[in-house]
């Protein structure tokens, strides 16, 4: 069970990291979302072995650790909010430019303009 979860975490991070390297914002947002899922799953895994629900009156030795669950819940809410904000930015970018491509650094563009183009050589 834990092995499956660990593999899933690794897979989510890997796929997310690959998607972040894309040029368009939508891919990046999905990539970040996947990494966020991976991170939340990792938090859950950090709590140790699964157990019964941590309710008042439950046998202390057999309950699951509630702390990572609370943390994961908080993290989910935060990433949800910021992802929504990023999507709004992607939409705004689409209105302004007609696309949602993330552009190069200002200095990168400046240097690219100064470099001789391939046709000259």
């Amino acid at each position, binding site marked *: 069970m834990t092995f499956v979860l660990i593999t899933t975490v690794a897979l989510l991070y890997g796929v997310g990291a690959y998607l972040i390297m894309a040029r368009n914002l939508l891919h990046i947002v999905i990539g970040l979302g996947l990494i*966020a899922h991976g*991170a939340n799953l*990792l938090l859950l895994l950090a709590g140790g072995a699964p157990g019964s629900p941590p309710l008042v009156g439950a046998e202390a030795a057999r309950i699951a650790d509630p*702390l990572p669950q609370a943390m994961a819940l908080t993290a989910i809410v935060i990433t949800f909010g910021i992802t929504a904000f990023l999507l709004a930015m992607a939409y705004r970018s689409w209105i*302004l430019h007609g696309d949602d491509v993330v552009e190069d*650094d200002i200095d990168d563009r400046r240097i690219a303009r100064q470099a001789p183009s391939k046709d000259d050589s």
Partner: protein
Amino acid sequence: MNALVVLPVALPLGAAGLSYALNRYPRFQRVLGVATLTTVLGLAIALLVNVQANGVLVKAIGNWTGPIGITLAADLFSVIILVVSMVVLLAVLVYAIGSPRTSSEARFFYPTYLILTAGIALSLLTADLFNLFVAFEIMLSASYVLITLGGSRDQIRHGTTYVIINLLASMLFITAIGITYAAAGTVNMADLAVKLGDISPAIRDALGALFLLVFGIKAAIFPLFFWLPDSYPTAPAPVTAIFAGLLTKVGVYAIIRTQTLLFPSDGPSTLILVLAGLTMVVGVLGAIAQNDIKRILSFHIISQIGYMIMGLGLFTIAALAGAIFYIVHHILVKTALFLVGGLVEHTMGTSRLRRLGGMVHRAPFIAALFLIPALSLAGIPPLSGFLAKLTLVQAGLEINQFLIVGVSLAVSLLTLFSMIKVWSGVFWGTPDPAAPPGEDVGTGRLVFPRLMVLPTAALVLLTLVFVVAAEPLYRISEHAAITLLDPTLYIEAVLGR
């Protein structure tokens, strides 16, 4: 008494809610904002006096004592930064009120600004790693809104990079917290400081590096600084000033806090010193290549972060005291410089060096307001930058770290060079014959809004007060550094023993 620790966070948050609910009354929003920040500044000073007299102040939220509940703790280091932050936040708020902007933007500026304040205060006061993550997110969410407020082309373009980089850093932060919890079974910083000692050194070092990476992105140290010079200059002047002055410094605060409390080293850390040196050099070289006031100043933020990290890397009492001293100096000076940059841009209509010139004849007072912090940044005696650099250099020489000291002195020289470049581009030379937008048509004099000049002048004055009060300020910094290097008091206070 201990409720004092909660108020700098709770008060701005409550005020933000009120400010948002009443966003149709801009005059009320302004009064509320200034009143809140003045009160919080007062509270922060009260905290400083209290902490200095009684040691670490702790408040367990909801009376759930550590390590399970969320604990807020104020030690001397966090309170010093808190006081300076509030001074700067208040000055920039007054500046923002004075700077003209469309009313629809301003309506949402005030509540967001107050949320930013709460986020900064919580980051400085929390004694819980996960809570630190939440605090960072409060601060960053507010900063996302502020940097894109207005939604212009440039803002969206560069804001996107800013949000993506920071969100990725936050994900790494959660990852680091998850691994920490798996390794040590706690996220309370005091508890961690005790328990991390028992786990294997390899895992400890890996965790230390992971946290350095996370906070390194937020603090813009080499090689993780690339997002900063692109995103900061696009925001409106007051927003850029507060970001430049405070946000990266909260990252530096987190680096110093975690590296001293959780992952203390025995002596100077070569890794951190190398990072510090490269941050200084790359930042200042970047600044030299730029032709726009705001971009030059943005690269200087990076270069200056190197000095603070250098203090941490040397890891002696004198060096850490120097780093704290440097942070205080830097927050005041950097914010003042960006405010002057904003004034120039407001009145002249551009911040590009090539299109500016001759302002020393037309606005000598503004030129003086620029010259003092600019020379201070470069470390010209007797200004605050000189004193701050002197303490760091002395600390470095004491333990024979000649290389980093040499690098830091060479970088000072290059800093002076690029400040002179701004000076000769903006203030010397012949004025552009075309009338700038801020010129009074009748008299032909340059007009600067009084509410923008006043807080700028106040901050410049404070950097001068810093020089006069250097001795007691250094004593407090040294006291804070001693507490940082011997965290037993902090640990005992937080764990309630």
